[in-house]
C-alpha cells in the first residue's frame, strides 16, 4: 500500500484553479519533495492532504484512509510543520512539545517522556524551560519540526521547513530530516533546489496547479537534457507540462 494515493485532486479559490486534477502516488518511507514557483499549488496540496482544506473534486488516501470520508483517521496518522514557526510563544519548549503529544492522544507521563526524547533528538534539552518566544529563528524552527514529530506520525508534511534559516541551521535541519529516512513518509515543499536534491528520493514539479514532472533528480535532468536540477526546474516550469 502506498503512503499517499492522490486521485484527481482539485481545489479552486473563486474562479482560479489552484490544484488541478493532481494524481500522484507516494510510497511508504519515501522522502518526496514538491517543487514549484510561488502559487504553483504546493501548500494548497499539503493543506488538503493534511485535512485542513477540503478538496473541491477528487480524493486522496493516506495509508488507506480517505481525506474526504475519514479525516479523523487520517489526522491520527499524520502531522505537519507549516511554513511559519507556529509555536505557542508563551509556552516553554517542553510545554510546547508536551501539548502536541497530548493533542495526539498521549497521557501526561507519555507526553513528558516523548518531549524529553524530542528535545534530545533536536538539541533542545538545554533550552527546555525557556519560552518559545526567546528562541532564535533556527531553534524555533527546530522546535516547530520537533512538535510535528512528537506524535510519531506515519506521514509527515513539511511546508518549506528551512525557509529563512541561515546556511548552518539549514544544514543541521537537513541532517535531522535525513535521519528520518525510511522511518516515516515525508512530503516537503521547498524553494531551495539543493534541499530537494539533498533530501528527496523523488521530486514532483508543480506548475499552475498541475504536476508537470515527476521523478528522481537524474530522471528530471535526463528528461530535460540538463545536468543540474536548477536547469531542469527552469526548463520544466518554462515549458509547462511535459510528457511523463
Amino acid at each position: 500500500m502506498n503512503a499517499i494515493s492522490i486521485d484527481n485532486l482539485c481545489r479552486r479559490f473563486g474562479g482560479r484553479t489552484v490544484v488541478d486534477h493532481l494524481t500522484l502516488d507516494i510510497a511508504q518511507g519515501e522522502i518526496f519533495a514538491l517543487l514549484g514557483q510561488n502559487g504553483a499549488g504546493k501548500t494548497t496540496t499539503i493543506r488538503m492532504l493534511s485535512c485542513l482544506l477540503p478538496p473541491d473534486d477528487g480524493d486522496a488516501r493516506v495509508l488507506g484512509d480517505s481525506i474526504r470520508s475519514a479525516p479523523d483517521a487520517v489526522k491520527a496518522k499524520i502531522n505537519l510543520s507549516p511554513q511559519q514557526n507556529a509555536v505557542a510563544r508563551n509556552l516553554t519548549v517542553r510545554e510546547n512539545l508536551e501539548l502536541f503529544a497530548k493533542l495526539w492522544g498521549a497521557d501526561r507521563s507519555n507526553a513528558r517522556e516523548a518531549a524529553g526524547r524530542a528535545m534530545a533528538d533536536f538539541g533542545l534539552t538545554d533550552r527546555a524551560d525557556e519560552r518559545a518566544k526567546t528562541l532564535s529563528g533556527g531553534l524555533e524552527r527546530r522546535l516547530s519540526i520537533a512538535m510535528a514529530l512528537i506524535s510519531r506520525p506515519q506521514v509527515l508534511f513539511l511546508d518549506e521547513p528551512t525557509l529563512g534559516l541561515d546556511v548552518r541551521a539549514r544544514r543541521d535541519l537537513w541532517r535531522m530530516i535525513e535521519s528520518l529516512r525510511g522511518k516515516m513518509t515525508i512530503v516537503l515543499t521547498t524553494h531551495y533546489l539543493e534541499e530537494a536534491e539533498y533530501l528527496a528520493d523523488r521530486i514532483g514539479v508543480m506548475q499552475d496547479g498541475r504536476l508537470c514532472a515527476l521523478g528522481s533528480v537524474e530522471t528530471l535532468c535526463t528528461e530535460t537534457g540538463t545536468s543540474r536540477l536548477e536547469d531542469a526546474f527552469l526548463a520544466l516550469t518554462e515549458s509547462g507540462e511535459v510528457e511523463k
Partner: protein
Amino acid sequence: MKRTAAMIGRNCREILRDPLSLIFGFLLPLALLVLMSAISRNLPEAIFPIDRFAPGMAVFSQTFLMLFGGLLLAGDRSSAFLARCFASPLSVRGYLMAYTIPLIPIGLAQGAVCFLAALFFDLPISLHLLWAELALIPAILLFVAFGLLFGVLCSDKQVGGMASIIIQVASLLGGIWFDLDLVGGVFGKIARCLPFYHAVRTVECGLAGDFAAALPCAVIVLGYAVGLFALAMVVFSRKRSRGHL
C-alpha cells in the same frame, strides 16, 4: 476530553503569562475602583456609592476577557498555530471550549479582586458577596463570547480596536460611571436594549441579595451570550470547513 484539557491548559498559560492580562484585567479596574472610591469618600455626597460602583467595576474588569480571548484566537489564526492544531484530531467543540473555559476562572478572580478592594471602602462583608461573584457569570460568558466572535472574524490587529469599542460602549451604556435612571430618554432606552446595563444590574442585585430582580437581568445577558456563542461557532465551523482559519 484529554485533548481539550491540553488545549485549555495551553490557553490558560498563554493568557496568564502575558503581562497585559495582569495590567488590564486586574490592575486597571482595581486602580479605578480605589481612585474613584477615594475621591467619592472626600465629597459631601458620594458620587460613586460603593454598593453600585463595585459591581460596575467588577463587570468592567470582565470586558478585558474579550480582549484576552479575541487576541489569543486571532493571534493563533495569523501565526498558523491554529492551523497546525487543526491537523490533530481535536473537535470544533473542543477548540471552542478551549478558548472559553480558561477565561471563566480568570473572570471570577478579577471580580473577587474588585470586591475585596471594595471591602476597604466600606462594602460590608456578607454572604451577598458570594452571590455577586456568581452573578458575574453571565457577564463573563457575554464578554468571552464577544472575544470568540472577534477572534474568529478579525485579524489580531483588528481585535484590539473592536474590543476597545465594546469596552467604551459597555462602560457608558452599562451605567458603570453614572446612574442610567438619571439619564433616561433615547440614551436610556438604547442602554436597556443592550446587555451591558443588565450585566451590571445582575451583579448589583446579587450584591443586594435581590434575586428576583437579578434573574430577569441575568436571562437577558445570557440570551445575548448564547446568541454570540452560536454566531461565533457558526463562523468558526464555516471558516474551518472552507480552510479559511
